[in-house]
Structure formats: C-alpha cells, structure tokens
C-alpha cells in the first residue's frame, strides 16, 4: 500500500478523503462519465490545484475542445490559468490545431503522435501532472478495438515510465458500457466513474472509485455538487 508521501493530492474537497490522499504518484488514472458529468472539471481542478496548492507543474492536452474554451471554463470557476501559463507552470496544449482536416484518419491523432509529443513536452515543461482530454478522440484513430487496446497498453506503460501522474478522460454512453471503447479501464491503475442520474425529476451527479491500485479506497457511490468553487464531494454521504 502506498504511503501518504507517495500520493498526489487532487485538492478536490472529498476526493482525496476517499482515495487515501489522492492518486498514486506516477500512476495512470482513468476518469469516465457521460457528457456533462464533470470529467473535464475534475481534471481541471487536479491540473490547476497542482500548480496553485502543491507547486506542481501541469500539462493539459486538449484533443476535442479548443484551448480557449478549456481556459475560459476554468476561469469561470475561479481557476485563472493565465498567470500560471505566463510563469511556465501550467501548459494547455491544443493538438487539434494541427490535425489534418481531410482523408482517412487525418482528423485524429494516434498514440504514437501523443508519445512523440509527450517525450519532448514533458521534458521541456517539467510537468508532473498530465491530463489527456480525451481518449475518445484518440480511439477513433484505430480501426479495431484490438489495435486500440494494444496501443493503449503500450501507451500506459510509456506514461508510467515518466515522472508524471496522468488523468485520461473517456466518455461513457448513458445506459451503455462504462467506457467509450470498453477497454480503457483495463490498462489504467485507477478507474473513477462519474455518473449522472435522475432522482425524483432532478439530475444528480455521482462519483465511484471502482479501482485504484496500491490504495485501500472507498468503493461507495458518493453524490457530488458543482459549486462556484468546482466539484465538492460529500465523502461521508452515499448515493442511494
């Protein structure tokens, strides 16, 4: 079991409490959930709090949205990345800007491109926290689930060899499998599922830590709120 000193705290109220203090250092962590469940927000807080509270540099790799939208969404929740970007502590990189626009597979990037990019960029930035938003886009690059699974496995090994704690985001379809391609959870060290469920005519957000290596984590489904300060998890409360 990992000791406290080997944890990478998220700074998200409640989440660190149910994970023994955060993600294991240098681990690969998967966050899945349907659209609107709070994946990007959770990852943004992990990224931003890293620099603000824990003096850890971060790299946020945008593959779906554009970087302006991601930065604006963070700012709306009191996470202004500009001073940290100027200070060389936080980097939001939008690889979508240089994707090809036409032809087969040209609108996407594969894991080989991401590895090539990270090999240089992690070294150049010194980032200790990494967010990849999202795997759903990379998955479209591959023709078969077998190819995707193999490349994802190689990629997760590559990430573990770097001194970086990674959050990989993936979409899940409501009522369908837990992850977009059904294989992402098998190669990650931890697997957190965000849910969006209707209770008495209202949408309720939930979070469940389904797996976390080296951690005696809470396995209960907890409700959470999105407030002006971001995600707040009621670690003592269970969703029933």
């Amino acid at each position: 079991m990992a000791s406290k000193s080997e944890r990478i705290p998220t700074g998200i109220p409640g989440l660190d409490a149910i994970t023994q203090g955060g993600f294991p250092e240098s681990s690969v962590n998967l966050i899945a959930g349907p659209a609107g469940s709070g994946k990007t927000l959770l990852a943004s807080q992990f990224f931003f709090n890293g620099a603000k509270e824990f003096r850890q540099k971060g790299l946020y790799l945008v593959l779906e949205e554009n970087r302006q939208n991601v930065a604006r969404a963070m700012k709306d929740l009191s996470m202004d990345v500009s001073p940290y970007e100027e200070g060389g502590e936080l980097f939001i990189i939008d690889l979508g800007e240089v994707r090809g626009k036409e032809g087969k597979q040209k609108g996407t990037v594969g894991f080989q491109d991401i590895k090539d990019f990270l090999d240089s960029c992690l070294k150049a930035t010194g980032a200790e926290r990494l967010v990849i938003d999202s795997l759903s886009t990379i998955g479209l690059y591959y023709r078969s689930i077998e190819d995707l699974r193999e490349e994802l496995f190689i990629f997760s090994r590559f990430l573990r060899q770097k001194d970086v704690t990674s959050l990989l985001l993936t979409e899940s379809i409501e009522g369908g499998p837990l992850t977009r391609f059904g294989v992402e959870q098998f190669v990650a060290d931890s697997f957190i599922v965000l849910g969006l469920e209707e209770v008495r005519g209202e949408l309720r957000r939930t979070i469940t830590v389904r797996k976390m290596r080296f951690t005696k984590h809470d396995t209960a489904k907890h409700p959470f709120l999105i407030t002006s300060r971001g995600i707040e998890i009621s670690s003592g409360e269970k969703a029933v």
Partner: protein
Amino acid sequence: MDRKRFSEALEALSGSYGLSILDVLRSRGWSIASDIAAELNIHTTTASKYLSKFYSAGFVERRRKRCRTRETFEYHLKSERIRFDIRIGEDEPGPLIESSQFYVSLLFDTIGKAQKIGWALITQGLMEALQDADFGDNPIAPIALSCLDLQGGKDNSIRLIKRAIQEEVDEVDMVDLKDFYRTLFRYVLQVCEEGVGRNTALRILQTTIAQSHKKYVDLARREHLLDIFPKEVIDGLEE
C-alpha cells in the same frame, strides 16, 4: 524579373559557355554540374556558377541529389525557349523582396501557430537558438537576422528586411537568401521539436506552409520557394 536578375541572366547567356551549357542540359536532361563540366571540358565551378544564375533567372529547375560524399543539385532545362518577363520602368518589389516576404510571413505564422496550440515558449526558444546559430559565411545572414524582430511582429520585420534588401541589393543573391532561410527553418523545426516533438513540429510547419502557399502560390512556384524545406516536410504536404 527585376533589373539585377535580368542583367545577370543576360551576362550568363552571353558568357563563353552560357548557351553551350543550356544545350547540354537540353540533350542530357537532369544533370549535375560536374557532368556538364566534363562534357564541355570546363571546370565544375564554372559550370556551377552558370547553372546557379540560370536557376535564379528561372531558366532551369533544380532538385537535391545525394552523391557519395555530399549533397548537390541536379538541373533540368525548363523549356527549349527562353523568355524574359520584364516591365521597363516599373518599381516592382522584385523576387528577392517578395521571397523574403514569403519566408518571413511563414516564420511568423509558424510561431503564431505554435503559440496558438499553447506552445508560447517557442519565441524565447527561437531567440536563444538564433543567438548561437551557425549560418556559415552566408553574407545575407547578418542583415536578415538584424531585421527579424521576433517580438515586434511580422509587419515590422517585413518592412525592415524590404528596406535592407533595397539598400544592399548588390550584396543579395537568391541562392544565399534561400540558404539563409533553409538554415533558419532548420532551427525553427529544431526548437519546435524540442518542445512538442518531431511529429507535431512537422505538422505545425506543414499547416503554415499550406496556408502560406495558397496565398503566394504563383511566387512559390516561380521561385521554387519550397525547395528549402526537408523532404519529410514536403512529403507531408503532398499527402
């Protein structure tokens, strides 16, 4: 064609071996300077000088060729008829200035693209790289480097380089100009690669070349402005 290049072209054509060299090219097809020199029994340097001037004048095409120990150019006659396109009395910017505008625009667009994806460190990285950059003894390098205002922006740099070329026109030659930008873009690619990896660096450059090429398509074709880029950059464009 500007006045300088027109007089150089006339000088080369009327020189002792000008027409003979073109005639050898006509009969042989793609040839390197040493092959032509051997056929005419002249020194390779002499053949090279003529070919370089014919290339600047747009009479011949050229492409890189890897020989046993080094890289050289091989040349090809564009057409068996030679035409001059010159307007008397027109104060046209001339291919040197136009080509510089193309390359400087491309440089700033590349920097802009890298910044847009979030790699703001490119400007600083490039400034550091250019401080120790090695341009050999290219006579254009000191002039062109002093005109590149990486923080001031594209328009200012273009204005400065235009004025410098007008003032130093006798010292500026298209071959040196291209060699300067060839080296400069090698540094750009290297700095980008260190930050975002080889593949992304290539994509950044390819995206900006494709955009610039659309704007300057006639000039780029006429002056062979894309010749300065490595094969992997150009191959990616063609895909």
